């Protein structure tokens, strides 16, 4: 079954991107209880800024670092200027604010850059590698490795460092965290910076394969959200597993059923998960007190 193997490999690549977006969602959701619909724009910014820095003559690694730093700064600004001031607002308002932010970022990108599709060269060439009668691009390996490294890095950060534990404490109970002396505003800044940086990294890694343009953020945000939900909202392990599963479902649907309805998979997954197991694969059951 070389076909099946091929679909699994491409699914794994796409899934790794979804996992990175889902991890970004998870970090912001944990820190602030906000689902950031502008998450996909971070991926888009990562790709676009790298493209234009690279075209301006900078070496690719430097261009990528600039893109990640600038996107992280935009993430911080998003928190400071739009989400922070609306703290305590109803969910509808927060949804509209983050969607507004995503439309705004898209609009500015289209003004500053342009509306074309862009790419830059793959990191280590375009020569496909053969695995079990199927092939994979070297850049796909970069994407998958990126997702694994980010996941392990986050895991170490949250379990082994004092700062990481402060973030977890804030997500658990903001007031209690403040009472034990955690600067929750700083935690919020850090979370948005981290989340935006991870999104930008995903953009940098995947652009040589999928190309980038100003309007690709929304679809990615929705897929990432589906992945996060599948794994269980707020759980990093769930984000990783959910992302990869979603990527595999999509690739298999495109291969065996219909490539037209490939994008429907994410939403069917969302609906199925919500009805069958609303907590997702790794989510905790929550009990609401009245």
């Amino acid at each position, binding site marked *: 079954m070389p076909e099946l193997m091929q679909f699994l490999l491409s699914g794994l690549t796409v899934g790794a991107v979804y996992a990175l977006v889902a991890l970004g969602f998870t970090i912001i959701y944990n820190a602030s209880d906000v689902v950031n619909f502008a998450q996909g724009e971070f991926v888009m910014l990562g790709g676009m800024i790298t493209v234009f820095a690279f075209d301006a003559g900078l070496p690719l690694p430097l261009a990528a670092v600039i893109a990640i730093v600038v996107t992280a700064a935009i993430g911080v600004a998003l928190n400071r200027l739009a989400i922070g001031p609306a703290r305590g607002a109803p969910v509808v*308002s927060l949804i509209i604010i983050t969607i507004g*932010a995503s439309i705004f970022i898209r609009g500015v990108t*289209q003004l500053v850059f342009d509306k074309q599709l862009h790419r830059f060269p793959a990191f280590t060439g375009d020569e496909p590698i053969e695995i079990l009668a199927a092939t994979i691009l070297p850049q796909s390996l970069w994407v998958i490795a990126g997702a694994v490294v980010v996941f392990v890095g986050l895991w170490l950060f949250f379990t082994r460092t004092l700062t990481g534990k402060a973030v977890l404490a804030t997500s658990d109970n903001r007031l209690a965290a403040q009472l034990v002396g955690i600067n929750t505003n700083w935690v919020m800044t850090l979370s948005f910076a981290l989340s935006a940086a991870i999104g930008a990294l995903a953009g940098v890694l995947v652009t040589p394969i999928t190309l980038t343009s100003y309007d690709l953020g929304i679809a990615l945000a929705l897929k990432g959200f589906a992945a996060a939900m599948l794994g269980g909202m707020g759980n990093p392990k769930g984000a990783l597993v959910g992302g990869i599963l979603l990527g595999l479902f999509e690739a298999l649907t495109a291969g065996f059923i219909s490539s037209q309805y490939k994008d429907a998979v994410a*939403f069917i997954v969302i609906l199925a998960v919500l009805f069958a197991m609303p907590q997702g694969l790794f989510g905790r059951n929550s009990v609401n007190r009245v």
Partner: protein
Amino acid sequence: MMRLTTKQITLLVLALLIAATPFFFPSAYYFRVGSLLFVNGVAVVGIVILTGFAGQISLGHAGFAGIGAYASALAPVHLGLHPAFAAVLGAALSALIAYVVGRPILRLKGYYLAVASLGFGILVSMVLSNEAWLTGGPDGIAVADLGLRQALGALGLKLSAPEFWYFFCGLCLLVGAWLALNLFDSPTGRALRALHGSEIAASTVGVDVPRLKLQAFVISAVYASASGSLLALQNKFITPDVAGYMHSIEMVTMAVLGGAGSVLGAILGAGILTLLPQVLTVFAEYEQVMLGLVMMLVMIFLREGLLPSLLRQFTGRGA
């Protein structure tokens, strides 16, 4: 002096605006913009019932607009129905689908409900784009003429097409607003507002929460469907964009921008977001930037929406 109720004030203001503004229109183009405003207004009044009254979110109502629009396009061709009945069929179909989809979806809350409904809307627009053998695909499809304008012409009331659609859509909006305001004051409306405040409190006093949420969802789907049908019949042409993600977002933004809790406020929101791109045609490049900025600023600084916040400023109390 006789005190007017909110309902009477809303209907009076609306009727006056619809009847009086044409006197200031320098060209037929303004009738066209006005009728688009009313079409959006109809959908937004539906969002007021769902979000403003019952407190539920939907980011997929464009899906129902799509069903209404394509029913108006397809039923006359394939079933031989008159376009008016096709629109009614679309509304019935939307209600049925809303009933089936709403039962499981409305168990969800907040972000989950938002994304589930968003998923539904995107599935509808995907089907409309992909099943080209039926819908004409992304290029769109022609819609038969409603025939009402010719009938009026035969009776001696001669209107140009933009004029006819301006007044017809205005009338539809007025009826839609009247029905919504009646609902607001009815026992059902009170129950909806109760479950908006607290589902648990509402259920302890005997409100059947799941049934009422479903009712609000179905009613608002019918509004969205009617809005889609009006758009299709007016343009005599429709593309799958009517069911697209951005259209759903626009509906909710219009409602929340003007004030989702008030029918008049939501229609004001529809007005602003319909006129904004027309005013900004010179700055077409900046349209997205402006839209995003308006969405963020209003939600941060005027959380209840423009109209309720402004009224509070002037009168020192809520509307």
